[in-house]
Structure formats: structure tokens, C-alpha cells
């Protein structure tokens, strides 16, 4: 999209490019330098289980508050307005409850597992681990597939860049930098860089919020949303907006994001003690809140700004039709490019691109670790040596990097980015909820029940728009997600009751 053709110029200057490039080079140099602290696979994958509270909180927020999160949350704010705040609310409440009770995460840390499929093996046997690990990585890598596209749209929106070719080069270089330091430094690099990125991004988000409020005025924001959207702009239960089933779906996603999604759970597994796990989740509930709330607010601000700007309004809010998903994704970066002064826009962009990298590094490490530990290693009766595991993990990191580069370029999104993320994640977590909750808290949960739940959970891929287009159906993502979760839980219960385990796998908690 070439906004300069309609007279819209960005505030992004050469000074801002210098800030961004300088910052990213420093980040990569630090990441590579940290390789010297890695002496074995535990250091590489879970930082020697040496994470303390504040670093744990920083790295958890640093990972989950990525550029893709900022993009999909702001898109939800742009399309759902204040009513979309319920996503942040649900996320924070659920994380706080997990932190206070230790639900799921404390038993996992107590068992000293590195990945969730490792728990599957201890509880249900090796076959469940391999199937669970395969579904987890499939879902996780698919989920990650849109990161690069979201990053590209942000760069185009904020810098005013229009050359697709140059953009692809920049995004490929960024991905290459992440691959470099993640393959060398593993989890230690990831946590240290997540910390730096947490600091830069937190302060960028806070300053940008203040700028947006000062520029538009709080009263103006409320009045504009009231006039243009009425009740649906504020009330999440309003049928013209999200509706009750969507709100329930968001509470499920809140639980999944903090206690079931592997990239978050790996932080619990990396924590120094159970006490720190609980404290980490309690503190991080503020992070879960903010990761949705502030970007969502930027989306609302972008809506108000664009609604009052006739030229932009024709592009982003056309009369009588709904703008394409990729256009609404660009609303927030275009808004920031108009209100932030030069210099500050460079710092904010550096923070956002650093966030882009911090999410990539954690996700790359996470899915490659699962592939190594849970899909490949269980096939070898005598196990794999630490060096072979390290080598395999590094090879998988590069292979996943190449996949997301290709996927991000050709997949047609066709739905809100957040809904794509939720439904691609649901392929894994719909089954995982049943395995984790029943596996930990119900003695009679059996291997057959676990297999059935995993297979049912895989059915969530029907929620992806291109799949629905092929099947000729149109069902909202929350209905698909909630139905699949209900099926997975039912399968687990009935499968376990009808086919109980004869010999329970070793290591199982009585």
C-alpha cells in the first residue's frame, strides 16, 4: 500500500533508521557473545533451570509481548474497539489464578519436565509423547507462520516503505540474525535478550500511550467510538460485536496462553523453584494484561484518528464495506507514523522489531526443542547424546526459519490475525487441555483417552479460513474452538472410563 500516493507521509527519518540498525546490531552481538556460557543441553534449553523471579517475569513478558502480539491486538482494537479490552481482562484474571493456585504449572515444574510432551510420556507412555509432540510442533510452527507477515506489514506502515523486494530482504535479514544468536546461545541468549527487549518495549509502549492520549484526547476517543459504534464499541457481550461465546473462548485462551502453550510453560520449567513459578505467574499477569491492552488501545486510537481523517478513512474505513484483514493490520503502524516525532519513532520501531526478534527466538528454540526431545529422541532406545541433541535442535531451528519465511510470503490470511493465531494454536491446545488437566488431576485418565483427545483436538484446523473455503462452510473460530475442546474433554473422559490402563507407565503420579 503506497500512502504517499494519497499525500500521507511518515515521520520516519534517516535518524530513525540509524537508531533501529544500531540497536539491532548490539542485540545480536550480545546474543552471540553469550554462547560462552553454554556447556550442556540443559543450559541451552532451560538456562540451567536458573531463572529467578524478575528475570523470569521479564523473559515471559518479553517473549509473549512480541511484534505479532502488538499487531493482532491492535487489529482487534481497531475492529472491536473498547469491547476488545475483555481479551486483556480475561488473560490477566486467568494468569493471576494460575499464579495463586499453581494450576497445571506447579505439577509440571515438580516433575522437572522440559516440554509438555515429556509429561505425556511420564503419564501416558511414549506413543502419546510422539503423537503429542508432532501435533504440538505442527500447530506451533503453523501458528508462527504469520509472524513474518505481521512484521512486514508493521515495517511498511511505520516507515512508509513500498518496495516489496526491499521489504523481503529486510525481513529475511532480521530472521537470519535471530537464527544466528538462537542457534549459538540457546535459552541463555534468549532470556538475556528478552530482558533487554522487555525494558525497551515496556518504556516504548508507555511513552506511546501517553502520546496517543495527548494527541487525540481521552474524551474525544470515547465520544468518537460512542458515535460511530454505540454499545457494541464498549460492551463485549453485545451481539453486534463479540458476543458471549467469544468472551468464553477468550477465557479459555487466557488459560492456554499462560499454562498450556509450550513457550510460556517452558518458563515455568526453567524457574529455579516452585515458589518462583507461582510468583512468576502472579507478576506476569500484569504482563498478560498489558500485552493485549496497550496495543489494543493503539488500535482504538488508530480508529479514532483515521475516522477523523477523510483521506485515510476512505482506505481503512470504506463506506458500506469492511476493509481487508491486511489493511486493518496496517492501521496502527500508519497511525504511529503520523503522531510520533522523529527520533522517538526510531526508538519505538527498534523496540517493536526487537520484540519481533524476541518472539521468534523463543518460539524457534521451543519448537525445535520439542521436535528433538519429543519427536526424534523417543525413537532411539539408547537415547541421544547431549551433543547430538544440540546439533539436531540447531538444524531444526534453521529448518523452521526457512519454513516460516516461505509460509509467511504466500499464505492468504482471510481472517483477523488474532483469530488465525487462536485457531492454529487450538490444533494443539484443544487436546492438550484434556491431557494436562485430566492427566495431572484425575488418576483414571488413560492412554486411550489421551490418544482420542489429541486426535479430536487436531480437528480445530477446520477453523482456518482457507480450510473453510475448501469445505464450503463458514463457522466462526470461537464456535469451532469451543466445540473441539468439548469433544476432546468428552473423548478423554469416556475413553478413559471405557478403556482404562492395565499397566500404568512408570513415573506416573499416584
Amino acid at each position, binding site marked *: 500500500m503506497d500512502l504517499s500516493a494519497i499525500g500521507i507521509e511518515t515521520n520516519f527519518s534517516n535518524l530513525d533508521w540509524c537508531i533501529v540498525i544500531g540497536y539491532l546490531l548490539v542485540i545480536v552481538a550480545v546474543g552471540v557473545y553469550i554462547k560462552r556460557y553454554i556447556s*550442556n543441553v540443559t543450559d541451552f534449553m532451560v538456562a*540451567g533451570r536458573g531463572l*529467578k*523471579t*524478575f*528475570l523470569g517475569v521479564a523473559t515471559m513478558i518479553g517473549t509473549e509481548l512480541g511484534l505479532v502480539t502488538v499487531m493482532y491486538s491492535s487489529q482487534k482494537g481497531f475492529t472491536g474497539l473498547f469491547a476488545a*479490552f475483555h481479551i486483556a481482562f480475561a488473560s490477566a484474571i486467568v494468569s493471576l489464578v494460575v499464579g495463586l493456585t499453581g494450576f497445571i504449572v506447579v505439577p509440571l515444574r515438580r516433575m522437572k519436565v522440559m516440554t509438555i510432551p515429556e509429561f505425556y510420556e511420564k503419564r501416558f507412555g511414549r506413543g502419546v509423547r510422539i503423537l503429542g509432540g508432532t501435533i504440538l510442533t505442527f500447530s506451533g510452527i503453523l501458528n508462527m507462520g504469520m509472524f513474518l507477515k505481521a512484521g512486514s506489514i508493521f515495517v511498511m506502515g511505520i516507515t512508509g516503505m513500498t518496495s516489496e523486494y526491499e521489504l523481503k530482504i529486510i525481513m529475511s535479514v532480521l530472521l537470519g540474525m535471530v537464527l544466528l544468536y538462537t542457534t549459538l546461545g540457546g535459552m541463555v541468549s534468549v532470556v538475556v535478550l528478552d530482558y533487554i527487549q522487555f525494558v525497551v518495549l515496556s518504556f516504548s509502549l508507555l511513552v506511546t500511550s501517553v502520546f496517543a492520549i495527548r494527541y487525540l484526547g481521552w474524551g474525544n476517543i470515547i465520544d468518537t467510538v460512542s458515535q460511530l459504534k*454505540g*454499545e457494541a464499541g464498549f460492551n463485549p457481550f453485545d451481539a453486534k460485536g463479540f458476543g458471549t461465546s467469544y468472551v468464553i473462548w477468550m477465557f479459555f485462551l487466557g488459560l492456554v496462553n499462560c499454562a498450556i502453550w509450550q513457550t510460556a510453560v517452558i518458563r515455568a520449567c526453567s524457574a529455579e523453584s516452585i515458589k518462583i513459578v507461582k510468583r512468576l505467574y502472579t507478576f506476569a499477569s500484569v504482563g498478560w494484561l498489558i500485552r493485549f491492552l*496497550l496495543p489494543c488501545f493503539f488500535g482504538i486510537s488508530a480508529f479514532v484518528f483515521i475516522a477523523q481523517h477523510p483521506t485515510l478513512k476512505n482506505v481503512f474505513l470504506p463506506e458500506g464495506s469492511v476493509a481487508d484483514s491486511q489493511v486493518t493490520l496496517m492501521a496502527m503502524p500508519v497511525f504511529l507514523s503520523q503522531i510520533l516525532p522523529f527520533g522517538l519513532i526510531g526508538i519505538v520501531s527498534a523496540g517493536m522489531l526487537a520484540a519481533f526478534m524476541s518472539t521468534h527466538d523463543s518460539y524457534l528454540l521451543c519448537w525445535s526443542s520439542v521436535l528433538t526431545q519429543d519427536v526424534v529422541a523417543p525413537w532411539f532406545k539408547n537415547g541421544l547424546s547431549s551433543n547430538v541433541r544440540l546439533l539436531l535442535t540447531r538444524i531444526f531451528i534453521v529448518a523452521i526459519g526457512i519454513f516460516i519465511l516461505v509460509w509467511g510470503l504466500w499464505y492468504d490470511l482471510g481472517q483477523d490475525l488474532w483469530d488465525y493465531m487462536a485457531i492454529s494454536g487450538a490444533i494443539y491446545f484443544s487436546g492438550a487441555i484434556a491431557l494436562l488437566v485430566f492427566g495431572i488431576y484425575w488418576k483414571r485418565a488413560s492412554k486411550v483417552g489421551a490418544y482420542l483427545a489429541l486426535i479430536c483436538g487436531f480437528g480445530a484446523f477446520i477453523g482456518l479460513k482457507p480450510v473453510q473455503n475448501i469445505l464450503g462452510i463458514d463457522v466462526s473460530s470461537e464456535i469451532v474452538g469451543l466445540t473441539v475442546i468439548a469433544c476432546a474433554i468428552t473423548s478423554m473422559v469416556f475413553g478413559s472410563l471405557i478403556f482404562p490402563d492395565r499397566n500404568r507407565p512408570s513415573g506416573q503420579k499416584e
Partner: protein
Amino acid sequence: MNFWINFWSFFFFASLAIFAVLAVVVTIGGFYNIRSLFKSLTNRADQNDDQS
């Protein structure tokens, strides 16, 4: 609708304030945690060298 306007306004500004405090606390606390992490990893590497 007024209920939701007031609720989200309070929710937004309260969250912003809490996050500002958390950002400062985690920035300072995280710095000390990193120092401690590096110390423990260096000690482990030294022990591994001694054993081999």
C-alpha cells in the same frame, strides 16, 4: 453503555499505572538476576572442567 465506558476507562488507567511500576521494578530486579545467572553458569562450567 455508561457502565462499560466508566469500567474500561478505570481499567485502562489503573493497568497503565500498575504496568509502569512493574516495568521499573522488573528492570532493576532483572539486572541483578542476570548477574546471578551468569555467576551460576560460570560456576557450573568450572565444575564440569574440573570433573573432566
